[in-house]
């Protein structure tokens, strides 16, 4: 009899609740709903008749008990402290039909006979409505990328039905025949012993030569070369560099039409997956990227994250202007970069004076996380301890212990925590029509195929007017469940134990995909802010490999766990193959 809403099972009513409902008409809690008070605006819901009344137990006159229940049948209030005594239970036993009560401080229904919470859809709907002063959301005033959201809810673009196509076995067309003949090279196999290295590495591993402080580029490229959906896209010939060039030439009519970064990626994939194990020099790629990001074109050291972002932008810019495709990054239909990396973040800003909440949606290709603020010097010693034993999670459960170990999950929890913006950061409230102090909360509306987490390891001190690198160790899991950071989970925790009547429009767009992710690449940085070295660790069929410019070696997973993560790449579990079939290892 329980039904599924948004993947969650709604609780079955107890027999006493069923009897109560049958005896008291279609809306048995209608009268109770008028007594819902929300204080402060947007805060917790309570049951009160008068704003300043002090609830007391009818039997013992106590008002300081932690749980006071009002009987829904006769409105009498009783205390409930099962360890000592329960006048609420006494009451329910003395009069049949008076088992259902409501917690006066939490506005939650309770069955005194069963000793357990019960749920009613209409009542919960009324509570949630009372808590959200204004249920409709608005668009943000800044930026054209925000999406509109309303309670009525219109179906997002990417949920509309796609027309199915009949299966046809593939045959190369005339163009493909030509490019196959002219431009392709045979994949090297085990018989070509001279070019195959003896270290039995999986297919697609090839060192990248450092062209002069280009480890920032090499590290990101190695991660992208093994990003499953990206790899599949390019190896599946979804962007053919010969076609693309020809098209560009035909349209522009110029001989040196600017190459597109996607074409360069295609060339890179071809080179790296060719079977040739000698280190490759991505000079052409570097040159193309310089043309795109002119301000970063130099032989100085660059930031890998900056490179990552500019690369994705570059691929997006050069995407062929296909009129059929939407250009908005949020849907992921614009280009392969956004299809793989773009998710949607939801931001709720609540005015602390009137409770009006404004919700905005923005696409994002990664999430930048702050390390927690300094914990008074305990960081260094305990991080040394943590590197030796990996059972510290048990120790961290104690609330008092300042274990000083930062975790990726901790960062995500902080990222999605409701944050009071200071009085110097007042935001404009549309209802009050003035700037007010606000409460802001982030959550994830739509998960991307690949989640990239960027750890902000630089600290800028405005006092000293300098930046420094934060070397603090960050623990990251190999498997990550993103469910607690989704908008649906965050909303659920904001409103408490409620059945959501309007789950329909709050459905996360990735409802049909799972929330479980697997780590496949870690970009690490060692050294100082202005002079350091990037190294990427890749995970293939549960083996870890270290990619240090031209050298790729197999390493133990403990090395990876202990590494200083700067960027972590997680792919949806369904797209990650733990047990690989024949990888073509030589």
């Amino acid at each position, binding site marked *: 009899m329980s039904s599924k809403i948004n993947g969650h099972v709604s609780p079955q009513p107890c027999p006493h609740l069923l009897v109560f409902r049958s005896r008291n008409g279609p809306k048995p809690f209608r009268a109770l709903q*008028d007594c819902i008070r929300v204080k402060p605006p947007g805060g917790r819901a309570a049951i009160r*008749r008068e704003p*300043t009344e002090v609830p007391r137990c*009818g039997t013992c006159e106590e008002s300081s008990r932690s749980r006071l229940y009002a009987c829904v049948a006769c*409105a*009498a209030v009783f205390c409930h402290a099962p360890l000592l005594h329960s006048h609420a239970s006494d009451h329910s036993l003395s009069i049949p039909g008076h088992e259902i009560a409501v917690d006066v401080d939490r506005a939650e229904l309770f069955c005194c006979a069963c000793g*357990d919470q019960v749920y009613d859809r209409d009542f919960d709907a009324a509570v949630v409505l009372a808590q959200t002063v204004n249920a409709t959301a608005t668009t943000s005033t800044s930026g054209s990328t925000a999406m509109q959201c309303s309670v009525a809810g219109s179906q997002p673009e990417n949920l509309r039905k796609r027309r199915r196509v009949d299966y046809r076995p593939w045959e190369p067309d005339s163009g493909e025949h030509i490019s196959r003949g002219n431009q392709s090279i045979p994949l090297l196999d085990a018989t070509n012993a001279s070019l195959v290295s003896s270290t039995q590495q999986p297919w697609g591993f090839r060192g990248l030569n450092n062209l002069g402080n280009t480890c920032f580029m090499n590290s990101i490229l190695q991660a992208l070369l093994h990003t499953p959906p990206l790899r599949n896209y390019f190896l599946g010939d979804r962007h053919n560099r010969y076609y693309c060039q020809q098209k560009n030439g035909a349209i522009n009519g110029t001989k040196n039409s600017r190459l597109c970064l996607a074409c360069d990626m295609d060339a890179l994939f071809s080179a790296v997956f060719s079977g040739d194990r000698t280190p490759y020099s991505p000079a052409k790629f570097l040159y193309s990227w310089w043309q795109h990001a002119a301000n970063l074109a130099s032989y100085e050291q660059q930031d890998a994250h900056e490179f990552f972002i500019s690369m994705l932008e570059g691929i997006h810019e050069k995407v062929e202007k296909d009129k059929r495709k939407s250009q908005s990054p949020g849907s992921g239909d614009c280009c392969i970069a956004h299809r793989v990396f773009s998710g949607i973040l939801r931001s709720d800003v609540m005015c602390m004076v009137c409770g009006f909440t404004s919700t905005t949606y923005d696409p994002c290709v990664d999430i930048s996380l702050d390390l927690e603020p300094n914990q008074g010097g305990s960081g260094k010693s305990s991080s040394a301890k943590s590197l030796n034993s990996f059972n510290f999670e048990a120790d961290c459960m104690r*609330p008092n212990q300042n274990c000083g170990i930062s975790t990726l999950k901790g960062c995500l929890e902080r990222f999605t925590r409701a944050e009071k913006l200071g009085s110097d950061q007042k935001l404009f409230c549309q209802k009050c029509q003035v700037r007010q102090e606000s409460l802001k909360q982030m959550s994830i509306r739509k998960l991307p195929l690949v989640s990239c987490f960027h750890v902000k390891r630089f600290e800028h001190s405005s006092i000293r007017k300098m930046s420094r690198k934060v070397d603090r160790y960050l623990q990251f899991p190999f498997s990550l469940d993103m469910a607690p950071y989704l908008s649906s989970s965050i909303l659920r925790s904001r409103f408490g134990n409620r059945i959501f009547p309007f789950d329909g429009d709050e459905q996360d767009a990735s409802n049909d995909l799972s929330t479980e992710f697997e780590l496949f690449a870690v970009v690490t940085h060692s050294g100082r802010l202005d002079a350091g070295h990037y190294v990427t660790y890749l995970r293939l069929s549960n083996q870890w490999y270290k990619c240090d410019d031209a050298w790729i070696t197999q390493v133990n997973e403990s090395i990876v766990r202990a590494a200083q993560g700067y960027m972590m790449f997680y792919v949806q579990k369904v797209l990650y193959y733990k047990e690989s079939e024949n990888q073509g290892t030589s």
Partner: protein
Amino acid sequence: MSHSHKLVIKSSMSRPPPPPPTTNKDQQHQNPSLQEINIKLIQSGEKERLKELLRERLLECGWIDEMKALCRAFTRKKGRNNVTVDDLVHVISPKGRASVPNSMKAELLQRIRAFLASTAD
């Protein structure tokens, strides 16, 4: 009982506190009873503010997460359908009370004292 009218909360909810036991001026400045303090806190809205502060502190130090973990572990052991709210309260209350940091207790106590001092007659 008819349910077409508004829920009537009986007088037990809004009955005023009993008057102080003596009219002697000196004795009125004696330590107020727990009941009186509680009522003062509720009526002024200070109790709600203190509760919010406490929630924030408990969240920050991981106490709430630890309680959640204890509840989950207990529920897993007993089986999801064999656990009631009362069971959970019974199980985690002693551990919960014991693990509230002393600094937090001190802070709240200080705030309550300050509040009472500021509203003293």
